[in-house]
């Protein structure tokens, strides 16, 4: 019964998006392994990949943000520490990315790749004890973000 409900939640729209994201993320990691294997410079490869993603992302974001601003959405809520949050994100993401690219450079993909996916326990602890997400299945988010 609980397993059935778990899978029914997994096929909801956000679950489907996350599953598709897994495929794309795996593709990106395969490309990264290809690159660090040839160039042997994790830092430069990471910069090259990030720069390309930013360039490719720009037109998509401009269109999406303009559409939402015209519909009355605010870009962010002032006073909620956007800058501070982004800076924290940057510090942690850059650290994690460097560790992972270095792991990709020296390790085998079939070991490093799966282990990259094992932030499970950390995500669980963060979600339940830091983000206080003890009530699973709230609807408020989607209603407010459409």
């Amino acid at each position, binding site marked *: 019964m609980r397993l059935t409900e778990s899978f029914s939640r997994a096929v909801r729209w956000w679950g489907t998006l996350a599953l598709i994201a897994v495929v794309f993320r795996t593709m990106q990691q395969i490309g990264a392994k290809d690159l660090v294997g040839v160039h042997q410079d994790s830092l430069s490869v990471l910069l090259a990949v990030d720069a390309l993603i930013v360039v490719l992302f720009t037109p998509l974001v401009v269109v999406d943000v303009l559409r939402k601003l015209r519909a009355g959405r605010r870009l962010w809520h002032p006073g909620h520490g956007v800058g501070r949050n982004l800076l924290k994100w940057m510090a942690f993401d850059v650290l994690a990315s460097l560790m992972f690219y270095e792991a990709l450079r020296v390790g*085998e993909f*079939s070991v490093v790749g799966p282990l990259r996916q094992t932030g499970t326990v950390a995500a669980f602890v963060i979600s339940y004890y830091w983000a206080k997400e003890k009530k699973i299945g709230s609807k408020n988010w989607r209603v407010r973000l459409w």
Partner: protein
Amino acid sequence: MVVAGALLIQGFDYTAADLYSSLLALGAATVFAVVGRFERYGINPINGAGMIPSAFAYACGVLATVGVACILYAKTGTIYTAVPIIEHILTVPHLVLFVAVAGVAANWLNMAALVDGEIVEVSAMLRLGVLATMFSGWWFFGEDISDRLHGGAVLFAGVLLVTLPLRRAAKK
């Protein structure tokens, strides 16, 4: 089960070098989980900054690029070592698709999933990549995974056990 799977997936014939890369990957996984917390806060309209998800993903991408560029410059005195790598990517079609297109799609879809799914749930879905990445090593890089299959299976089962969303049946 997660820890046992993580150990088993290295196979029975591994060296100190394998252990180093494995520890790096596990450390990265833990830090990426913290990153997920900031992502969720950034787009949370109720208790967080409430940014538009695509804009937040983009701002994160720009900041990460700047951060990496600063580190590279501090380390080598130049950031132009990335230029030949960009040229390499742009001249190989499958790298454009895998690195750039898939990278953008993964970032955006991850944020979009976080809008409605909670961290632990979205995380559970993302962790299904355990098996996908293991088989990718065999498929794309010709690695021998025959002695890793059982480890991958244990790891996968452990990940599902810890993070699949479970809700107690309503009391009648």
